[in-house]
């Protein structure tokens, strides 16, 4: 039961809000409870073809030869799509906000980097005929050394997963291999702390497991446009991603979505739409591309696994004086959104606590695992799990009640956060107090009287002296190289797109509308 504690921070809140705190009818609820909400897959169009992809059976392999000749002759096959048919066969999702280098093909060309990577798409009259044609595609793989562990991927000599990032780490601001946070002198504070506790936390990938699997239906419309019914949870993001990959202006598409049969972050990757539309362009027929359940579970992107090390210095009275965090985000073989997760994670350190010495290193690491993506609070959820486990262990170590321990270390209004911004509107102390009250968990009177608005600032607002770090120049990658790696120079240009598709050429009325200079406070300015 929802309970609004209006007694807390009563003077800071306007109670005459129109929506907040008042019940409201969800606009899609009537359709859901009456079973009339339209989903993308409710559109059975006349003459619709079905697209299925041939997926890699290896986690890391060079593609020596792809033989589709027998599949082309198979019954019901209308078109085989290969990497060379994709107008811009290299993309990264966040290129739309000028963040990161294009690193992922729609269909693999020279090598595959994870098990299940799409290599060839088959458009056929029925799903069955597409499946039968898939069985006739012959692919000659040359297996390459694999790496599945984030720390192994950073060791010298590790296999290079993705040649766009030859050191197996995402490159921030075109220079840095990590997100880094330095506040005070954590090493010195750890040396003088009464207790030091270092722990390792390992998460697992988590699949979103939506009821409706990823999918879309694309159909030729009038005036050279395409209508696209899609399950995407990021409709305009998907429009622009498709416009880039297919090298047409985004007004070529009329995307219809909005009803998502379960997304949770797993439907932002725009995995089906580009190939689906390309299939419609190449055949002139409506095309449907839907993941099967096993595809969704095995090759649909999960929440990435993180490995987190936390080393804390705590005094006998319960004050945390230093927190050193190293986190590795397993991005899988391609960036998708994990680069952004690491930014969010670094921005969250050291949790909602005032700690005078913080040292954080957050890496986005490439491995030969299924690419990870967004999922509900990604970047923060796992780190919070680790931090709060650590808080319980620290409380136990110094013999304090875990609730009181959190109140003691909680940030308060006026404190300086590790990012050198003043903490405002803090409310952790009140949250813990109410949680303790609801759980009938006894906390001492002095902790019940503490407030986020008292005793903050002052000395706690100071920015401590932070020792400068000598920035070693970024060394040339020392990893084992394959003949397919690009030269290790810091090339900032994406490789040239593969040649345009053979006949029939998809319509390309105007020059693409990309290339504007944009600015982001997080990512900086960059021209694509």
């Amino acid at each position, binding site marked *: 039961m929802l309970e609004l504690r209006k007694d807390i921070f009563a003077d800071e809140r306007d109670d005459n809000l129109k929506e907040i705190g008042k019940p409201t009818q969800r606009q899609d609820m009537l359709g859901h409870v009456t079973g009339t909400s339209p989903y993308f897959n409710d559109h059975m169009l006349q003459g619709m073809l079905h697209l299925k992809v041939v997926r890699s059976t290896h986690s890391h392999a060079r593609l020596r030869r792809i033989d589709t000749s027998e599949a082309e002759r198979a019954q019901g096959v209308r078109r085989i799509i290969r990497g060379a048919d994709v107008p811009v066969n290299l993309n990264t999702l966040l290129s739309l906000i000028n963040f990161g280098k294009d690193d992922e093909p729609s269909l693999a060309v020279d090598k595959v980097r994870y098990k299940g990577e799409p290599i060839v798409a088959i458009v056929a009259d029925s*799903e*069955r005929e597409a499946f*039968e044609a898939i*069985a006739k595609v012959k692919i000659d793989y040359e297996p390459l050394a694999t790496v599945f562990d984030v720390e192994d991927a950073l060791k010298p000599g590790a296999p290079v997963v993705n040649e766009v990032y030859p050191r197996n780490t995402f490159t921030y601001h075109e220079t840095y291999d990590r997100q880094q946070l330095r506040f005070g002198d954590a090493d010195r504070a750890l040396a003088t702390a009464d207790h030091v506790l270092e722990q390792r936390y390992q998460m697992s990938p988590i699949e979103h497991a939506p009821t409706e699997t990823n999918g879309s239906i694309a159909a030729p419309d009038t005036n050279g446009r395409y209508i696209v019914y899609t399950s995407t949870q990021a409709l305009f993001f998907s429009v622009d991603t498709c416009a880039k990959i297919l090298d047409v202006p985004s007004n070529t598409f009329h995307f219809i979505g909005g009803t998502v049969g379960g997304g949770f972050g797993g439907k932002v990757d725009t995995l089906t739409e580009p190939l689906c539309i390309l299939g419609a362009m190449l055949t002139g027929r409506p095309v449907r591309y839907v993941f099967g359940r096993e595809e969704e579970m095995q090759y649909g992107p999960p929440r990435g696994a993180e490995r987190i090390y936390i080393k804390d210095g705590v005094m006998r009275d319960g004050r945390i004086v230093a927190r050193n965090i190293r986190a590795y985000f397993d991005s899988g073989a391609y960036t998708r959104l994990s680069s952004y997760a690491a930014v969010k994670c670094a921005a969250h350190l050291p949790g909602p606590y005032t700690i005078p010495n913080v040292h954080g290193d957050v890496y986005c690491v490439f491995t030969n695992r299924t690419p990870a993506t967004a999922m509900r609070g990604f970047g923060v959820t796992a780190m919070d799990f680790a931090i709060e486990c650590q808080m319980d262990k620290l409380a136990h170590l110094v013999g304090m009640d875990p609730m009181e321990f959190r109140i003691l270390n909680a940030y308060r209004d006026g404190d300086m956060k590790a990012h050198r911004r003043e903490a405002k509107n803090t409310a952790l102390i009140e949250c813990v107090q109410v949680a303790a009250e609801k759980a009938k968990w006894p906390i001492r009177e002095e902790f019940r009287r503490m407030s986020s608005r008292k005793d903050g600032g002052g000395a706690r607002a100071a920015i401590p002296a932070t020792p400068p770090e000598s920035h070693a120049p970024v060394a040339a990658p020392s990893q084992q190289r394959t003949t397919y790696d690009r030269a290790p120079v810091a090339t900032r240009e994406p490789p040239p797109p593969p040649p345009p598709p053979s006949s029939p050429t998809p319509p390309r009325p105007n020059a693409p509308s990309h290339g504007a200079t944009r600015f982001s406070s997080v990512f900086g300015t960059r021209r694509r």
Partner: protein
Amino acid sequence: MPVTVRTFTSSGDAAAALSSDRSARYLGGGTLVMRALNEGDISISTIVRASDHALSRIEATGSRVTIGAGVTFARILAERDLAFLHAPARSIGGPAVRNMGTVGGNLFAPNPYGDFTVALLALDAMVSVQGGLGSRDIPIEEFLQGRERQTGTLVLSISCQKPGQTDAFRYRKIARIKPKGGSVITLAAHLPVNGNRIVGARIALGSMAPTQIRARAAERALEGRSLDAATISAAAAAAAEGTAPGDNALGSAWYRREIVGVHLRRLLSGQE
């Protein structure tokens, strides 16, 4: 090649269609076959169905029960005379799967499924099958050992003796997700007692080998003894003997070997 659906009124005709076509599969409730088709299994080109009422018959009034292969788990749960099979029936899937899934199909369900078959193996059931050459009864253990070769035959029914005492038959499914998860391991025990001694002990395990198997070493530890702490310990210690579990997302082979004795001990000592 499109998938052909062939429906027959007699199970004999259906069996003949199955045995004459290697790409034919019998469709009972569809919880396995339709999943395979939807996921692109092109080894299936013909679906065979039979509307024979004998396949959905339950005879449970006497001491020996016969259950048609097409009987669903929902129907078993609705049958008071089959109370001893309610626990295994309820452990399968959710209501939708129990409404469609059948006893006959469960005999072919690969790991981590096939829990009902574990119960039937402990109960020493007979499987009645119809092949190209007519019908015959096969002990379930023999049936499971040759399961890969049974695709050309049609299961008509299963039959077994009702347990004499209600606590003589025990069943336990270990799953990570309750109530609908796949099996980490599944255990069933039939322990008929004659004058305080166990006579004819049968322990069956699921997910401990490619098919459901008997824990013969544990059975030997129980045979002829009373169910006391020492006997239970001996059986638990022998539980993993002769098993060959595999790794899957629900658990590793090592983990399965480690826990099978623990859960057998709990099953035999009546612990929750």
